[in-house]
């Protein structure tokens, strides 16, 4: 495989948008191209992540329409990817693999999503479609419900009182809102308190409303190329030094919900390819769709032993300024927002800007190596990318 690097990265503001999925992707895409000093006519392929455009705007086949709006050349192909919430990470990984394999020298990848175009009943129904339609969906399980069941199992397995675990989980939300308060692109740029989380309404026992990420609109795009091409576009290339991806089906296939086996399989591939270990990772953007999800992730990714990650946020170990791996300096899905088809590319954008020292008040000092972690469905897809600045 050839060495693969990232040039320009960009994301729209996350929140509620009046622009279409195509328009949002173009906003991020053209900004990423401008930052890379490359024109659309020189992009050899387009990799677009989008989950629910069919339902949001009646728009399937979106990659071709984005391609046209961006003015890419007709002989550059455009592809759409869908893997639930891990969608954009998979688009970025597929792009990187194609460049690494020698098929293309420079491509554009990313994702776009406009959930707020749907009313709430349609949004809930389309989100639930990522669980197994024949087996899981008829139980009425929701995604907060999936992670709520994981939280109860975690508390039972490690002998933690559920009221105590709720406080530890609330600290994850407080930490991620603190990080987002310094992120001008984030959906929620305000701090919250543990009490506020614990007093918000219950969504799925034991998860409160403020344990959950929001519905969001947004897009993000990154320019990926060979080392040689990217050196021509930027004096701060960021290298993709390892990737991984795993698949696992529904929950009943992986019933120990405290161990997300797909994540363990995916990140093992990425660590092996990159030749790094968890203690080498300076910062990580991971899949905190719910607060318990961050606790499970920091254990599965190897930053903490199993059953020992629950109080990391409460002790400040995952917060900006910590000597340990800083988790979700962007504010994470919880506070930066979670436009599902765009999230992975936005995680890449955050890590790349951090490794270039361009993250302003939320800069992780001296960051050299970062990990992207994105999960889809009822633990059925996980994708990881390891990025390094030298």
């Amino acid at each position, binding site marked *: 495989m050839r060495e693969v690097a990232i040039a320009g990265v960009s994301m729209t503001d996350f929140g509620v948008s009046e622009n279409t999925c195509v328009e949002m992707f173009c906003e991020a895409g053209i900004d990423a191209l401008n930052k890379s000093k490359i024109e659309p006519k020189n992009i050899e392929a387009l990799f677009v992540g989008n989950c629910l455009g069919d339902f949001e705007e009646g728009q399937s086949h979106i990659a071709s329409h984005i391609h046209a709006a961006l003015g890419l050349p007709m002989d550059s192909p455009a592809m759409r990817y869908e893997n639930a919430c891990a969608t954009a990470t998979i688009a970025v990984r597929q792009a990187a693999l194609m460049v690494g394999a020698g098929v293309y020298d420079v491509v554009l990848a990313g994702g776009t999503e406009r959930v707020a175009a749907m009313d709430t*009943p*349609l949004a*809930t*129904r389309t*989100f*639930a479609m990522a669980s197994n339609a*024949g*087996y*899981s*969906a*008829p*139980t*009425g*399980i*929701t995604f*907060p*419900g999936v992670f*709520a*069941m*994981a939280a*109860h*199992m975690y*508390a*039972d397995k490690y002998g933690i009182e*559920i009221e105590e675990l709720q406080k530890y989980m609330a600290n994850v939300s407080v930490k991620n809102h603190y990080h987002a308060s310094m992120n001008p692109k984030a959906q929620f740029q305000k701090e919250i308190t543990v009490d506020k989380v614990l007093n918000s*309404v*219950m*969504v*799925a*026992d*034991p998860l409160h409303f403020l344990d959950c990420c929001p519905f969001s609109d947004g897009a993000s795009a990154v320019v990926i190329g060979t080392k040689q091409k990217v050196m021509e576009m930027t004096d701060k290339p960021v290298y993709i030094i390892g990737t991984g991806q795993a698949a696992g089906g*529904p*929950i*009943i*296939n992986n*019933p120990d*919900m405290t161990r997300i086996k797909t994540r363990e399989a995916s990140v093992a591939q990425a660590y092996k390819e990159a030749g790094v270990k968890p203690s080498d990772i300076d910062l990580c953007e991971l899949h905190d769709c719910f607060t318990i999800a961050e606790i499970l992730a920091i254990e599965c990714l190897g930053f903490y032993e199993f059953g020992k990650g629950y109080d990391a946020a409460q002790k400040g170990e995952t917060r900006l300024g910590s000597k340990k791996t800083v988790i979700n300096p962007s504010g994470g899905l919880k506070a930066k927002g979670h436009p599902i088809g765009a999230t992975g590319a936005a995680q890449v954008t955050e890590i790349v800007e951090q490794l270039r020292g361009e993250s302003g008040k939320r800069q992780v000092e001296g960051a050299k190596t970062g990990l992207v972690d994105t999960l889809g469905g009822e633990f059925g897809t996980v994708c990881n990318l390891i990025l390094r600045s030298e």
Partner: protein
Amino acid sequence: MINQLSLNEYQKGLADEKLLGIHCKKCNQFSFHSSVVCKHCGSTELETKNFEAAGTIKTYTVIRVASDGFEAPFVVALVKTDSRIHVMGNLDIDPDSVGMELIGKRVSISSKKVNPDPYAKEVTHTLKFVLE
């Protein structure tokens, strides 16, 4: 010859109060419907067999914000059956009376009608759990 328990056959079974799974003749373990191989050993020597209608609650939640077609609050539980296959379904209980003590409790398993898809023509069943 591949034995594939289709979703349709599984659902028809639930309508008749039969709990059908895919049983592996080689390793004696169960997999869920639509699989063409045993998820434990990979064998294709499979047969359709009833799994035990009783088991133990491994975890649960009370859904308080429901999807289209469901009325909150209600309890979803993950149960390990006595046939060692894990299944998900609804616990028939007052949702406001439950807590962590549910985990480890024994349940009997039957089925009930649900309507998760307002656009679907077919009636769907899911599993119903009752505390023993």
